[in-house]
């Protein structure tokens, strides 16, 4: 039995020499593989970066799952058998109401291993008045420590501090502008039916979403409960999940667990998600087709090489080179082309991303995942070996007696 290592050495030597001997051919196909893998690396980094950025921005201002009380509906008395009734039903107005037993629900959700953050919130409409200016706002009463683990408002503060309680409120930049308010100013809030409060502006945030910056008023839980006439109640429980794309599935589980309504961000951002999915599919198609054309390039170059080297393969076989050795010489060439081409291509793609980051539109920063280039190289190497399979089998099957006389 031929020692494995010795045989491997021989195969490496022959494969390398064959590649170096056909320098022009090798350079051309390497160029092709380089361009292909650079495109794949660049487009993957770009689209991944873009999507992460979009999702991050979207989820930066909303909870992954919102848990709400069930909608109210009209209860109809059950009919006796074979009776027919005609009902004229108008849907019930959904009044603001608390989640019953919300403390227990929060306690249960706190124990859930896949929900790293849970924040009970009371929210409802109110009017904000400052001098003669008035604006309709959404009051958000919450516990800042819990809430910030879901939406880190502190990160987006442009003035003051994220401090509620003791008559403090934090408002958005648009609202501050509309009402001419600054940190330290006073703001009157009117929850209707004579429930009013005057609060001090402790901070101003800018989440970057106009609607939120114009409407959100953060308050202490208790104060908001009083203003919204929901003493001791919360209207929503916001949660964060460990894996954002598992939000839908977790929402269904929470519904079964609590009997409440659970809305995942994936439901509320259906269109966005749809757009991202279509984009991913397009990228995937581009990657697959570029990959296939690169693989076919490798296969055709090696097929030509096998024909060109028919006599040399014949003489190698005559000198005692086993079929397996010839097979591996050509598989190795495919693998080497894939490895080297994708190595250079990966570096070029990485460079392109950096150029995009420095000289591009600058709307967002595209990170390159450290694993991207090594994974691309691994796949390209395997694809090279696979692409070489057909020509390599052909070379290994040559009848040496015929191959030697091939002209």
């Amino acid at each position, binding site marked *: 039995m031929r020692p494995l290592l010795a045989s491997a050495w021989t195969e490496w030597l022959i494969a390398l020499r064959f590649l170096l001997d056909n320098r022009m051919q090798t350079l051309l196909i390497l160029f092709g593989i380089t361009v292909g893998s650079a495109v794949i690396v660049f487009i993957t980094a770009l689209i991944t970066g873009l999507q992460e950025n979009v999702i991050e921005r979207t989820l930066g201002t909303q909870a992954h799952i919102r848990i709400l009380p069930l909608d109210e509906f009209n209860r109809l008395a059950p009919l006796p058998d074979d009776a027919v009734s005609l009902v004229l039903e108008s849907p019930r107005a959904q009044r603001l109401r608390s989640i019953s037993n919300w403390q227990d629900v929060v306690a249960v959700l706190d124990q859930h291993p896949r929900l790293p953050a849970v924040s009970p919130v009371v929210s409802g409409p109110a009017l904000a008045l400052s001098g003669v200016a008035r604006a309709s706002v959404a009051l958000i009463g919450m516990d800042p420590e819990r809430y910030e683990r879901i939406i880190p408002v502190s990160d987006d503060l442009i003035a003051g501090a994220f401090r509620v309680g003791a008559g403090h409120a934090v408002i958005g930049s648009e609202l501050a502008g509309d009402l001419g308010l600054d940190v330290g100013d006073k703001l009157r809030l009117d929850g209707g039916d004579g429930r009013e409060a005057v609060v001090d502006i402790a901070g101003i945030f800018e989440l970057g979403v106009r609607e939120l910056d114009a409407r959100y008023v953060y308050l202490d839980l208790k104060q908001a409960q009083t203003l919204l006439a929901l003493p001791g109640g919360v209207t929503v429980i916001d949660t964060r999940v460990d894996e954002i794309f598992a939000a839908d599935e977790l929402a269904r589980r929470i519904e079964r667990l609590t009997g409440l309504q659970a809305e995942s961000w994936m439901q509320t951002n259906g269109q966005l998600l749809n757009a991202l999915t279509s984009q991913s599919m397009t990228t995937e198609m581009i990657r697959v087709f570029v990959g296939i054309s690169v693989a076919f390039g490798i296969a055709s170059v090696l097929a030509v090489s096998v024909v060109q080297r028919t006599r040399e393969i014949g003489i190698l076989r005559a000198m005692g080179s086993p079929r397996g050795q010839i097979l591996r010489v050509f598989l190795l060439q495919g693998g080497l082309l894939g490895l080297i081409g994708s190595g250079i291509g990966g570096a070029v793609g990485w460079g392109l991303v950096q150029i995009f980051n420095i000289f591009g539109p600058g709307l967002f920063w595209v990170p390159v995942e450290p694993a991207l280039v090594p994974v691309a190289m691994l796949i390209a190497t395997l694809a090279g070996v696979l692409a070489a399979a057909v020509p390599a089998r052909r070379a290994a099957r040559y009848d040496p*007696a015929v191959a*030697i006389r091939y002209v």
Partner: protein
Amino acid sequence: MSDEVLCLQGIGKTFNQGTPLESTVLRDIDLRLGRGELTALIGPSGSGKSTLLNLIGLLDVPSAGELYLQGRPTRDSDDTTRTHLRNQALGFVFQFHHLISAFSVLENVLMPLIIRSGRPSADAVELARSLLREVGLEDLADKKPTEISGGQQQRVAIARALITRPPLLLADEPTGNLDSKTAASVFELFRRINEQFGCSILVVTHDPRLAASCPRTVQLVDGRIVSDELSKSSSG
């Protein structure tokens, strides 16, 4: 161990057996080659010389008969065994040199050893250099095959065939592609190697003058051996 390097018993070869294109190229060949014999195989084209050489070189399998290489039957051995035997017991020299263009002259000479056991040892490299010296090409060791002449290429091919010290060297029209002067010198080299290394050599040629310079001449016509004679000048 017998003194016979090669023994053919009733060898026949039929191509496309069982089809309308069936053609029998060799019939009932009996041939023995002794250790250290230099034999010329001659015959008109189409007489089956190359087919016979392929069978002896274990590149092809006979349809009938048995072929013993160093006393071992080979007909039923599998491809792996035959490949191994080619590497161990046989040296090939072909009409069109068949050096591998991607390797230097020295590496070409070493190739059978590289195939056998990977990276060549210092001893192997020394042996290759001495063989190149033997064929008068020591200075060209680092050249590429494309950079040397046809006659030189054929000498390199001979050195390569000898590197494994095979008991049997097979040469198929080794001078067919060379001018008569170069051909004569290559043939001279065969004779010298035969004496020096003591390996048996079977040379296929259609040049009667070159054949006449071999001690033994076997003539093949229509797939049969029609004559097998020792030349008078030879001591036998």
